[in-house]
């Protein structure tokens, strides 16, 4: 057990699974880096250095740099998964799902069902999401709700190093296609992470903090915003229960309902879009299945309905923050 960054935790999960199972392969743009160039290999490990070092241990037969051809290598990963390999395909930014959407939502998701259950597709798609780097609207989205729409996929959204390692190992060992969404703003976050491999099951929310007044549902980087707000609110005498569902598909609706049963109040904070996003889905579940438990309207704290601007001041305005959450919790306490 040692303090490790989110980046290190993810790297370690892949490393250990690749050691454990020779059918695990990694492919994507610059997952090694430097292939074919005249300098050193293992040059990148992706733009954030997350997969650095893996090619040195496992070689280019298992760590494959790809051309900028997401549709082809995602399709290849599906085909390989159907043939006995266990590929981890790197989709640099989740926004680039745009160029390989068919492979993910029409091929990977439906392969097993449409063909009558003949196959399994043990594919993990690692990808980066989230705003905060000033790289504008086509590189900053939190598109995990889009994937959660589709039956046949699983969608994982880890909020810290410990979860990242355990959930990623679960994803790699899982026999279904999993989209593993890493938040760019979390790579430097440090937490105690066991050195040994371990798994965290999908569909089980993490109770981050308990409290009887309000339930706050938060995922990914928003968990930390929620934690800060809850600390602040506790000083004002409001006790928040924070739940991190950890996976948006499957979604642990049971735990959410359980918590709302105790608090009667629900605020959802999420970085995905304000419409047809994560916050809407959680609100809908509770409005349908937990209506009688509610003492107040559900409040969603989300970005506004707008593409994400590059300008850092506007981007900060875009991302839901502690102040907004505190306002929302106060409001939900008043009604």
């Amino acid at each position, binding site marked *: 057990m040692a303090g490790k960054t989110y980046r290190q935790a993810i790297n370690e999960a892949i490393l250990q699974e690749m050691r454990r199972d020779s059918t695990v392969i990694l492919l994507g743009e610059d997952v090694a880096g430097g292939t074919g160039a005249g300098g050193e290999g293992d040059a990148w490990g992706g733009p954030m250095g997350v997969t650095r070092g893996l090619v040195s241990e496992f070689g280019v037969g298992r760590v494959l740099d790809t051309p900028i*051809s997401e549709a082809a290598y995602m399709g290849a990963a599906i085909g390989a998964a159907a043939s006995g390999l266990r590929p981890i395909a790197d989709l640099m930014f989740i926004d680039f799902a745009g160029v390989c959407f*068919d492979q993910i939502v029409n091929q990977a998701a439906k392969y097993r069902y*449409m063909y*009558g259950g*003949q*196959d399994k597709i043990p594919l993990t798609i690692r990808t980066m999401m989230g705003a905060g780097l000033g790289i504008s609207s086509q590189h900053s989205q939190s598109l995990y709700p889009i994937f959660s729409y589709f039956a046949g996929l699983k969608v994982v959204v880890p909020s810290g190093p410990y979860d990242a390692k355990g959930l990623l190992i679960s994803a790699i060992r899982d*026999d*279904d296609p999993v989209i593993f969404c890493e938040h760019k703003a979390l790579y430097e976050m440090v937490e105690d992470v066991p050195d040994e491999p371990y798994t965290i099951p999908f569909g089980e929310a993490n109770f981050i903090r308990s409290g009887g007044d309000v339930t706050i549902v938060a995922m990914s980087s928003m968990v930390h915003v929620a934690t800060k707000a809850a600390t602040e609110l506790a000083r004002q005498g409001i006790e928040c229960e924070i739940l991190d569902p950890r996976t948006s598909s*499957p979604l642990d609706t049971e735990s959410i309902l359980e918590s709302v049963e105790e608090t009667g109040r629900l605020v959802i904070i999420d970085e995905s879009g304000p419409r047809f996003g994560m916050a809407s889905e959680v609100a809908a579940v509770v409005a349908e299945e937990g209506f009688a438990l509610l003492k107040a309207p559900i409040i969603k704290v989300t970005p506004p309905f707008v593409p994400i601007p590059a300008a850092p001041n506007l981007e900060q305005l875009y991302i839901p923050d502690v102040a907004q959450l505190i306002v929302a919790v106060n409001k939900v306490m008043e009604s």
Partner: protein
Amino acid sequence: MQSTKELLVAYRSMRTIREFEERMHIEFAKGGVPGFVHLYAGQEASAVGVCANLSGKDVLLNTHRAHGPAIARGADIFAVAKEIYCRGEGLCKGRGGSAHLHDVKSGLWGANSGVGSGVALGCGAALAARNLKTGGVAVALVGDGAVNQGVVSEALNLASIWKLPLVIVFENNGYGEATAVDYAVAGKDLYKRAAAFDMPGVKVDGHDYFAVYDEVRLAVERARAGHGPSIIEAKQIRYFGHFEGDAQTYRPKNEVEQCRQGNDCLKRFRQHVLNENRVEESDLNSIDTEVADLIDRVYKEAKAARFPGEDELMQSIYASEYQG
């Protein structure tokens, strides 16, 4: 050179596809066949010429014009028919229908919504074959229309730089739906895409079983030996519409009739093997009779088969315990 036995197998396969499709054309008009149905009649030499080169460890990637390749690859024809009729004992339990025939145990992978994806999936099958040292190759069928999907070009490049054991067969039947290949494909010749991706590309007469067989053999050998992918363009003609119900007003009059008369792949096969005295005519004739009988039984059984049970709707969505 193929043995007499192999030639008879090939002939039986082609004849079976023809009979199956001619019958399907009639049955479809009567009603009761769900969905869009794309017939392969006329193109038999293509799928059969390809499949004669494949063994059990290989993978054939099908297109939406799926019946012919499925039969050529040796999928159970009763299960094929039942799948087209969307019955519970169909190849895919009635979930895929005509366009998605998929049978892992025959090494047949189904077609996909986005036409052209087969090349990418085939890259994966080929990569796995190499990593797992199975000795298998993958062969992707791609229509002349599908060739213009971006994923095809991406996958050709990928297969080439990774020297994957993959063969790409462009089945050029002249049309993507109602649009002519001469309009839709710059330069008109599909095989010329090969040079752009640094792989061999040839054009063959897709109505000539032997030409297809020979070129595919070379390409499969090359792939198996680790020398990378190849492209074969097989020019062919479909005898029916894009799908059943297509009025086909876009086609030149007599295009099909002329082909049926003078350039039919089954007729040419017969002539060829009889001219060269490689099989007995009586053997071919008895195959014809047997196939006609088989097709009768297949349709009878398929139409009588049960639809999937209502409880099947929510089964095998996921491979893990969780089912949504």
